[in-house]
């Protein structure tokens, strides 16, 4: 079973040289810590920055320089600032190669729910609806089940949707799963996790073909 850092580490293996990447709040943010050596990946922050760097050193925080999670950050050489319309413009135009974000639920056809629990939580969708509607490649980083142990990989989402038919891949604490036209397809198991356990914790249709390898980090 993976911890949050390991989920981020596994997702980082999907990065390719020259990629522009948007990382959501939570586990996705951690992906930045595991960018493979030797490749250049440029991080986009949808509040108006390309070339996001690490958090600042103590005393070097700049209130005018934050990421989409409102955290103080820094910039890397070659960065650029722009307004929110251009930011979502480049997202809509498919210029961002990969989007990594969290989810409450994903359905076997790639629908995602992540922004609202009716009657309980109303934070708003922020940029998530724009990102999932536009991104060429979306990876969801999440726990396979909720705190009650119920599957978050469903036949159909119960919560209000963020976007439809958009998720391409899921990296959970248990597995790497591809979303295909025919349902979830199991690609890799977390170390020590059996196909059976993944099957039991996946409510949506899970396709298991041949030997499923363990993840390699």
């Amino acid at each position, binding site marked *: 079973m993976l911890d949050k850092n390991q989920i981020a580490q596994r997702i980082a293996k999907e990065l390719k040289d020259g990629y522009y990447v948007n990382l959501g709040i939570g586990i996705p943010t951690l992906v930045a810590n595991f960018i493979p050596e030797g490749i250049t990946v440029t991080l986009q922050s949808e509040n108006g920055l390309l070339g996001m760097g690490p958090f600042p050193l103590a005393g070097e925080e700049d209130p005018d320089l934050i990421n989409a999670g409102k955290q103080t950050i820094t910039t890397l050489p070659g960065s650029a600032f722009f307004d*929110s*319309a251009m930011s979502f413009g480049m997202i809509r135009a498919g210029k961002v190669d990969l989007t990594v974000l969290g989810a409450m639920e994903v359905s076997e056809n790639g629908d995602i729910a992540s922004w609202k629990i009716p009657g309980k939580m*109303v934070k708003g969708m922020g940029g998530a*609806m724009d990102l999932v509607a536009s991104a060429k490649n979306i990876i969801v980083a999440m726990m396979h089940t909720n705190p009650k142990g119920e599957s978050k990989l469903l036949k159909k989402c119960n919560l209000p949707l963020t976007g439809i*038919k958009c998720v391409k891949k899921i990296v959970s604490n248990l597995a790497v799963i591809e979303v295909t036209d025919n349902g979830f397809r199991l690609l890799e198991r977390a170390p020590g996790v059996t196909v059976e356990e993944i099957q039991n914790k996946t409510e949506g249709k899970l396709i298991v073909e041949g030997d499923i390898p363990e993840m390699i980090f």
Partner: protein
Amino acid sequence: MNKVFKDAGEALHDISDGKIIMLGGFGLCGIPENCIAALVKKEVKELTCISNNAGVDDFGIGLLLKKKQLKKMIASYVGENAEFERQLLTGELEVELIPQGTLATRCMASGYGMPAIFTPAGVGTEVAEGKESRVFNGKEYLMEYAFDADFALVKAWKGDTAGNLIYKETARNFNPLMAMAGKITIAEVEELVEAGQLNPNEIHTPGIYVHRIFKGSVYEKRIEQRTIRQSAH
């Protein structure tokens, strides 16, 4: 034609109850602190606010919420504000949540004289309810309308007496878009210089969009999530 005002109080003299007001900023970054303070002081009520966020409980738009000056809030993310959630759940406050890119582009559409735009954001979700949708090249888009705001209150880093504005870093965010979208746009700046002192090649908002400008008296620039790394990293 003088665009320069002494302070927020004078610049906002004609904002009255019931107006539709845009406020720039993302979280607490780049918000028009002096304009918000003036709105609180004026005690104008029944405002409709268009802003990406609703501030925090004791800063930013949160100050207007606390004094119950808002009738309606149009925003994309309001997760940092408990008072907001309370007013929303009790029905005291009308709220329209819309995707962040839709919010930004509807501002831009207004400033660019485009009555409506198409975006895929929200297709298949409750955001799409009641909206016209249309398929282009096999992909579905929602038609979203330009905003119609009485006032836009924005915050810039530098401004000149002709109304030209330059923003700093990610404090730019929604500010230039809203600056274009107000029937009356009021800009507060950290540094106000004479026309001719800013490099015309570096202007983010041309002065034609800005009706009033003043130098903010003080900027707290509160940080919402102070995050740091260890120097060893």
